[in-house]
């Protein structure tokens, strides 16, 4: 399907479903190296997003409207670092998606804006065992796919695949940002929960476009 408003809504609903299914996994990952609230917080946030989507009388006109609704709802309901981080990511993405449909370049812009939002808010870079380790390779892969003439769905698929590899790459890293940084070397050997949830969200973006 095309990457349009219906896609954005489908992406968000899939995300809520996926986060609910992976809630316990994310809680366990976060318990190993953080404060153990990532799965619960994100689940609460995305449930609230879906409730707001359900309450809309008519679908938004632009993709950016959907992403902005996600951003503001996550910020005010998540209650952990993921709230402002994902909130800022979706908010920045909303600002570059004021359209009813995105072409491949538009999808690249969405992913790059989300990455910029996470970097701006979290002040992290790659290799620090954070969400950035999933989003940064995703953005690079998206650019490469678009340059190679891929469709919007191809761009999302490439981004999702790279995010999965990127998330896995956090396992041997020692955290230097966020709550896990208090553990230092002891964080080595654990998958970063933020990178894992980022991977899941991007997989849903690709799945919604492939549906």
């Amino acid at each position, binding site marked *: 399907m095309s990457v349009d408003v219906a896609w954005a809504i489908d992406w968000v609903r899939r995300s809520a479903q996926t986060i609910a299914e992976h809630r316990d996994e994310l809680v366990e990952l976060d318990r190993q190296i953080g*404060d153990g*609230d990532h799965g619960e*917080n994100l689940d609460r946030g995305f449930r609230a997003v879906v409730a707001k989507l359900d309450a809309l009388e008519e679908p938004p006109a632009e993709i950016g409207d959907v992403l902005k609704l996600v951003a503001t709802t996550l*910020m*005010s*309901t*998540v*209650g*952990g*670092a993921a*709230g*402002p*981080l994902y*909130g*800022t990511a979706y908010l920045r993405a909303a600002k570059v998606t004021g359209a009813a449909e995105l072409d491949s370049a538009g999808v690249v812009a969405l992913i790059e804006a989300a990455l910029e939002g996470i970097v701006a*808010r*979290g002040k992290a870079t790659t290799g620090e065992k954070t969400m950035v380790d999933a989003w940064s390779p995703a953005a690079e892969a998206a650019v490469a796919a678009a340059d190679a003439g891929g469709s919007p769905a191809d761009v999302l698929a490439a981004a999702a695949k790279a995010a999965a590899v990127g998330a896995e790459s956090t396992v041997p890293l020692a955290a230097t940002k*966020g*709550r896990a940084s208090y553990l230092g070397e002891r964080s080595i050997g654990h998958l970063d929960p933020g990178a894992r949830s980022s991977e899941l969200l991007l997989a849903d973006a690709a799945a919604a476009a492939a549906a």
Partner: protein
Amino acid sequence: MSAPGTRDVARVALVLVSHSHDLAVGAVELAGQMAPGVLLVPVGGTADGQLGTDFDGIERAFAQATEDGRSAVVLMDLGSAVLTAESVLDLADDDLVARVRLADAPFVEGAVAAAVTAHGGADLDAVLAAAEGAGRMYPVEKADVVPTSLPDDGVVRETRTLLNPMGLHARPAAVISRMLASYDAKVTVNGVSAASVLALMKLGATQGTELRIEAEGPQAEEAVKVFVTEVERGFGEI
């Protein structure tokens, strides 16, 4: 809400953002004890009472703290409190953003130092500096280097013995800091700034300790005089 001017409230308020409701309220209680005239707004935990940060709660706290033309310094405890406070400011209007500063400071020490400074009538930048300076107090070692000669360098010096049975604890330390805030003079006690409650407390001065008071500046004489008077009367505790 009280009408402006009906109460003597400092022009800089503090917002204390914690993951924990109890921690935010406790820090407000602690800082408020030494700065009764400062508006201190606690915001801790999520809206449903769990550990975490509450975007809407922080937004309301910023609005309350900056009512009636006040500005506000914000203290935060851990990462997501900082991220959420930054996000609130990102989405706030320019007028509020111009009057709110996020302090890169230790939560409890910063709150106490900022509250006492705000109580002395200081402006936004000075209150922020007090909060951010609080993190550097602890490495300060007691400088017991007594100069062998006392040159005529414009420094006013007096030495008095501390009479307070409980030593130079939080209350007299706050009295000193507040009292000296209105004098145009740089005052030190045993080598540490008398403007800093935390530095004074860190001296660990017990009853019988010799206090070397030194002051420079246009009102050095006056500042030392009121200081000595307070030491001699045991800061009202004897």
